[in-house]
């Protein structure tokens, strides 16, 4: 573990990994939902025409 204790390594690695991962997963979910929303808007527009 080099010069750092295990708890030191954990606080260096875990929070950034967990926080960035949670935002990335949320981003992907948002993009998917927006695609569905776009589809919905398009269908509503066609129905409106």
């Amino acid at each position, binding site marked *: 573990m080099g010069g750092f204790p295990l708890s030191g390594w954990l*606080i260096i690695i875990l929070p950034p990994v967990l926080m*960035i991962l949670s935002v990335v997963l949320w981003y992907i979910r948002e993009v998917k939902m927006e695609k569905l929303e776009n*589809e919905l808007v398009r269908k509503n527009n066609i129905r409106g025409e």
Partner: protein
Amino acid sequence: MSHIGILVIVILYLVFLLVVGFWYSKASSAGSSEYFLGGRKMGPWVLSMSEKASESSGFMTVGLPGEGYSTGMSSVWNAVSSVFSIFNWFFFAKRIRRLSEILKSITIPDLLSARFQDHTHVMRMVSIVIMTIFQTVYVCAQFVAFGVLFEVVLGVSFSIGVIVGGIITIIYTMLGGFFAVALTDFIQGLLMAFALFILPILAIIEIGGFNRMGTLLGESMGTEFLQPFFGESLLTLAGLIAIISYLFIGFGFNGSPHILVRYMALRNTRDVKRIALIGIIWMMIAYYGASFIGMSGAVLFPNLENPEHIFPTMTVELLPWWLAGIILAGALSAMMSSIDSMLLIASSTIAEDLWNKVLHKGELDEGRTILISRIATAVIGGFGIIIALNPLDSVFWLAVFAWAGLATCFGPPIILSLFWKGVTKWGAISGMIVGPVVTVLWYFFPPVDIYEGGPAFIAALVVIVVVSLFTQPPKGEEFDRMWDEYTEKSELGRLAPLPSDLESVKTLQKSDVSTKTEKEIVTQLLNSRMRTASPYVNK
């Protein structure tokens, strides 16, 4: 030569900021929405950097490296408090943007007053008083940090540092409004990330590697320095309280008006996801970078009198003068981006909420409102400079008050009002008063040695809920219509898109072939070909 070189780079940077202010003064004079929210035209990169730069302040370049220097790995808990920023993006940002569009609000007090139908202006007055007091104090503390940095690195006198830095920040905020503030914040955010990324790397290379830094720190400071338990080798009750205290600082992200107003300035709610992604990467680089600057500094410069001098000392000692100049500009950026945002928020509150809405019943023309805001910027900034020139010992700690006072005043009522229709005007007002009062009382008479912002935030939330249960909630056809529009769901079970969202979908569909029917594609191609050919046909 090195001092003169650094000074020249810093002066060039300050001149550049002034040019940005002049450049955007015309655009910002177009109307109140343009001046206070940048006309809601800012892209996610600009707004994200602006959010991060303005919330960071001198804390990132002076405070946190100093904490890393003196407490070691425990300082990294500050980075963990970023989780409260994630709550903002996941749960609050879209709803704030949504509510502000529906209620046509351009400031935070404006949003609260419209949401709670406060025709008596009590809420506005409470907002104005608390915002003006705490933000003036915060601005003042940044001016002091400004003067210290000038003094340590450039050898310029403290007073000159405060006056020059203060006046330049006031001028570009006065002229350019939100456009100038957000764009300079964007540059400042990038510069800060660069500084906080490059400096620890260079320092660790100088030491001989990351593991060697750990070994040397373990030998000189003890292994407890490398563990995140505040001087202990295991988690103790005192350590747990210290960790909770650090995490409570994160509440500030959820309540500071200069952060929340950035969500109101979004082009549409879809930009939130990009802001979140850019923001979290920036935060991790900046927070960990700042802590590692402190820890590596404890190896390279072990005998500093003041731990908070580690950032400027390392910059001057480790880097060539031209890079030191750029990085110092980044450090000044951290402070200036907070000052400008605070000044703009405080002055917009005075101009829009007090002068226009309360004194002139919303009938003041926009040109006059902007003029009042510019005067208020100059007055508050000038007042901040005067106090900063004769700083009290406690000014730095009053800045921590300001962060907690603002967050506990605005965070709880805004968060609750986004999700609960039954929050009442008196409930919100009680919370807005209780939060800052508990902040101050806890600071002077702490029952437990924990950061005052946390208990004050929780107290304000509880008071709002209790008072709301016993008082009359907003009612009437107009309010019900607003709430129905705000909570309307689409077929997907999500909040229905607003006009600004639909506009972005239309723009997207115009440029995306996959979302079009064949007929639409052919028609568009024919139209575009005709347009392209028309100049030649006319000739």
